[in-house]
C-alpha cells in the first residue's frame, strides 16, 4: 500500500464514519437514560432523507447563503484529510499545520455566520453573533494548548508532533495533562455540545449552531449537518493524535494499518463514550457563563505552559 492510498482511505473513513460516531453518541446517551434509542445508523438515515428532499430558499437569499454549505463542507473535509488518523506521515499532512487546520475550521465558521445573517431573521443573526463571540474566546485557549504541545515537540506539524510523542518514553508530564484538559474543554465548545450548546434542540432561545442553520433545508442542510459530524470526529481524532497516538503506524503496510485502524476506533469510541456520559450527567450552562468556561480553559492551558517552563525544561 502506498501512503497516498492510505491517505485517501483515511479521509473517506473520517467522512463515512462521522455519522456513525454521531449515532454512537446518541445511542450511548439513550442507553444511559434507559431508552432504546434510534440506533447507530440513524444519522445516516437522516442524511439520506435530507439529500432526497427539495431545497426551499427565501426569495431574498443571496449567493452567500447558497454557496455556504459547499464551502463549509469542503473546508471541514479538507481539514479532516490533513489530520493523520492511521498513518503518521501522510502526504497531505504537510499542507497545513495545526494552526492552518484551526484556520480552515474558522473559515467554515465565518461563512456559516454570514449565512446566518443573510436571510435577515432574528434567529440567524443571534446565532451568528453568539457563535463568533464564543469562538473568539475559544481560539486563544486552543492555541495556548497547542503551544504547550509544540514546545516539547518543537513543531506545529501534526506528523512531527505525533512522532515526538511516539518516540519519547512514556512519562507523566503535568503540562500535557493541563493541555489535554483544556483541549477537551475547547473541543466540546467548538462542536457545540453540552454544556455549551445542545445539538438536539431546535427553537430555543439559547441555541447557537442550530440558530444559524435554521433556514436551511434539503441537501444544503444535509451538507451542513454532515460537516458538523465530521468536525466532531475530526476533533476526537486530533485529541487522540496529540495525546495518545500509540498504535499509529509509520509504514503503510497492511497489518500496520489494520492494527492502527482497530486501535483508532477503540480510542475514539472511548472518547465519545466519555462525552456521552458527561452530556447525560450535565445540564447546559447559562449563556453568559460560557465565557467563564472558556476563560477557564485558557487559564488551564496557560498553567500548562507555566508548568512546562518551571518543571520540565531543565529536567
Amino acid at each position: 500500500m502506498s501512503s497516498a492510498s492510505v491517505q485517501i482511505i483515511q479521509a473517506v473513513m473520517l467522512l463515512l464514519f462521522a455519522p456513525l460516531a454521531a449515532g454512537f453518541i446518541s445511542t450511548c446517551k439513550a442507553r444511559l437514560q434507559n431508552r432504546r434509542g434510534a440506533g447507530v445508523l440513524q444519522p445516516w438515515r437522516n442524511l439520506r432523507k435530507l439529500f432526497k428532499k427539495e431545497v426551499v430558499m427565501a426569495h431574498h437569499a443571496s449567493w452567500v447563503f447558497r454557496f455556504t454549505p459547499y464551502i463549509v463542507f469542503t473546508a471541514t473535509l479538507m481539514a479532516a484529510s490533513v489530520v493523520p488518523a492511521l498513518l503518521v506521515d501522510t502526504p497531505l499532512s504537510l499542507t497545513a499545520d495545526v494552526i492552518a487546520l484551526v484556520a480552515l475550521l474558522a473559515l467554515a465558521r465565518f461563512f456559516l455566520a454570514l449565512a446566518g445573517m443573510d436571510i435577515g431573521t432574528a434567529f440567524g443573526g443571534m446565532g451568528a453573533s453568539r457563535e463568533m463571540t464564543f469562538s473568539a474566546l475559544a481560539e486563544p485557549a486552543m492555541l495556548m494548548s497547542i503551544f504547550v504541545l509544540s514546545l516539547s515537540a518543537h513543531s506545529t506539524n501534526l506528523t512531527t508532533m505525533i512522532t515526538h510523542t511516539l518516540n519519547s518514553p512514556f512519562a507523566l508530564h503535568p503540562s500535557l495533562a493541563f493541555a489535554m484538559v483544556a483541549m477537551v474543554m475547547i473541543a466540546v465548545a467548538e462542536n457545540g455540545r453540552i454544556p455549551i450548546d445542545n445539538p438536539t434542540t431546535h427553537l430555543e432561545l439559547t441555541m447557537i449552531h442550530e440558530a444559524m442553520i435554521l433556514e436551511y433545508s434539503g441537501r444544503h442542510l444535509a451538507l451542513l449537518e454532515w460537516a458538523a459530524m465530521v468536525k466532531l470526529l475530526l476533533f476526537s481524532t486530533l485529541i487522540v493524535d496529540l495525546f495518545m497516538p500509540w498504535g499509529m503506524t509509520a509504514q503503510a503496510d497492511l497489518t500496520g494499518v489494520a492494527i492502527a485502524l482497530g486501535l483508532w476506533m477503540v480510542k475514539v469510541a472511548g472518547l465519545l463514550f466519555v462525552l456521552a456520559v458527561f452530556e447525560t450527567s450535565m445540564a447546559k450552562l447559562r449563556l453568559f457563563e460560557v465565557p467563564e468556561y472558556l476563560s477557564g480553559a485558557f487559564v488551564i492551558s496557560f498553567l500548562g505552559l507555566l508548568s512546562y517552563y518551571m518543571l520540565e525544561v531543565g529536567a
Partner: protein
Amino acid sequence: MLSLNAALAACMVCTLATLIPAFCSRNGLQRSLLCLLLAVTGLLACIAGLAGLLVGGGDLTLPLGLPWLPMHLRIDALSSFFLLLIGSLLLSVAIYSQGYLRGMAHIASLTVFMPLFVLGMLGVVLSDDAFTFMLFWEIMSVSSYFLVTFEHQHVENRKAGYIYLLMAHLAGLLILGSFATLYAASGSFEFAAMREAVISPLWAAIAFLLAGVGFGTKAGMVPMHGWLPEAHPVAPSNVSALMSGIMLKVAIFGFLRVVWDLMGPGDFQWWWGMLVLAAGSGSAVTGVLLALQQNDLKRLLAYSSIENIGIILIGLGLGMLLARFEYPMLSALALIGALYHAINHALFKGLLFMGAGAVLHSTGTRNMEVMGGLIHRMPWTAALFLVACIAIAGLPPFNGFVSEWLIFQSALMAPQLGGTMLSTMIPFSAAMLALAGALAAACFVKAFGVVFLGRSRSEAASHAHEVDHWMKLGMAIPALLCLLFGLSPVLVIPVLDAIPQLLLHTSISDSVHAHGWLWLTPVDTGRASYSAPIILAGMLVLGGVTFWLLHPKGRTIRRSKMWSCGNPHLNARMQYNATAFSQPLRRIFSGVYQPEEKTHIARPFHTLLTQQVRYIVHIQDLMVQRLYQPVADYVLSLAKRLDRLHQQDIRAYLAYTFYTILFLLALLSIKQSIAAYHFWPLMQGKALSTQILAGQPRLPVAGLVTGVAV
C-alpha cells in the same frame, strides 16, 4: 540606478500634480488629470520599489535644502519595500478616485493636497538625512490635515482635524527629539554617520523611547491612537484608504529606519522588545474590541487599523527580542512576518475603505444601522468587500493568514529567552494575537453581515446602486493582490529577503523555498509547513465534485417566503443589527467598555401594557477619555493662568521683549563658553572663566560669560 530614477520621476510627477488647479479650472478635467498623474506616480513607485528590491538601489545628493546640508536621498531594501507598498495601493486608489470624485464639487483643495501628501510619504521613504526626513514628514502631516478637513463645513470634521494636527505635531516633536539624540552622538544629520556612531546605552534608550512613542503616535499605537478614529472616518474615502493603508505604514517605516537601521540590533536592550511586544498586544486587542462596538462603518475600519498596527508591532517586538538574544534567523522570520502584514494590511484595508466609500457613495450614509441587503443592489462591491473581510479576518487561502501564521511561527519557535517571565510573555502575546484574530473575524462578520446581507433597513439602502467601472477596477486590483499574496508567499518572501539581509545580516530565503514554490516552510518541514495552493485546489476540487454530485438535472431550488415561526408580519427592523450583534461581547467585556446603557420602557396605559421600549447604549474610548482629558484640562487651566499676562499695557510687553533678549544672550554665551572650554583641554578646573576670557578676547558677548557662567 533605475529605481532611483523611477522614484525621482514619481516625485516629479507628484509635484506636477499639485499644480493642476493653477492651469485648469474645470472640475472634470482637474479630476481626470489628478487621477492620471497619481496613477503614474503609483506605477513609477512600484517600478522603483521592485527594481530596488531585485536589482539594488543607489544614493544621490540633491543640491536642494539648507546651504550646508544638501538633500541626501537613498534607496535601500527597506525603502524599496515601502515604495512598492505605497505604489501598489496608490495605483488602485488613483483609479478608484476617478469614479469616486465624480459629482463632488470644489475638489481644488483635494487636487493640491493629495499629491502633496503622496509626495511627503515618498520623500520620507527616500530620505537619507534627518533634515530631509523631517521636512517630508511635516509635508505629509500638514497636507493630510487639509485632506481630513476637506469637508470643513461640518463641525466634527474640523474638530477631528484639529486633534489630528495636534497629535501629529506631538509625534513630530518626539521624532525630532530622537534625531537630536542621534545627532548628539554622531555629530551629523546624515543617516550614514548616525549608523556608524557609537551611542551609550542610556542615550540609545532615550532615542528608542522618543522614536517609539513618536512613530507609535503616528501609527496609531494604543494609547496614542486618539486621533485615528476621529480623523480617518471624516476624510474622503479615497484619502482614508491612503491614510490607513499607507500613512500608518510610513510611521512603521520610520520606526524601522531609526530603531532597526540607525541604531541597529547591536544596541537593542532586552526590555525594548518587551515594550514593543506589550504595546503591540495591547493595540491589537484594544483596537479590535473597540472596532466591534462601532456602528459607523468607517470608524469600525479605523479601529481595526489600530488592531493591525498592533499585529505588526507584535511581529517587530518578537524580532527585537530574538535579535537581542542572538537568534538572527528567527528574528528575520518575525521581521518578514511583520513586513508581510504591513503590505497585506495596506491592500485589504485600502480595499475596505474603498468599499466603504462605495457604500457611502451610493447610500449617502456611514451608519450601518440603516444599511442591509446591499449584496443585491451592489453585487460587485459586495464580492470585493467580502474578499477583504476574509483576508483581514486571517483566514486561508488569503494573505492575512500568511502573515499571521509567520508571526505565530516565530513566536512558537522562540526558544527559551533569559527567564520565565520573558519566555511566557512570548506565548502570551501569541495568544493575544489569536484573540485579536478571532475577534477580527467576528468584527468583519458583523461589518459584512449588517451592511450587505439581510434586508434593507432604510429607503436609501433599498435604492442603492452599483458603482461605476473605475471604482470597481480600483477595488479589484487589491482584491486580486490579496489572493496572490495569500497563494504565493514562497515567491514573495525571497523578494523581501533583502531587508533582513540589510538589517540583520541574515537570510531566510533558502529555508523558505527549499521545498519548491508550493510549500512555505519557515525553517524546515519538520517544524511547520503550509501550502495555500494545495488547500485552495483541494477545496475547489472537493467543492466542485460535491456540487456536481448534488445537482442532477431537474432539481431546482424552490424560492419561497422566509420562515417566520408562524408570525405573518416580519419586518426589516426585526433583524439583528450592528448594536445587537456586538451585545454578547459588550456584556462579556463590560469591564473594558464600561458602557452607559439606558432602557426606557413606555407604559402609558397600564403597567402590563408595554407600548415602546427604547434602548440607548453609549460606548466611549475610555483610554482617550481617561488619558487625554486630564492633559487637555491641565493645558487649558495653565492657559487660563497665563492669560493674565496678556492683559498688560505696552510697557509690560516691552519688558517681556527685553528680558527675553537678555535670556537668549545669556544662553548664547553659555554655549560659547562651553565651546571655549572644550578648545582648552589643558585648563581644567581652576579660574575657568577668567582664563577663557584671557584666551579668547574676541568673544562678542564676553561680559555676560562671567556674569552667568560663574
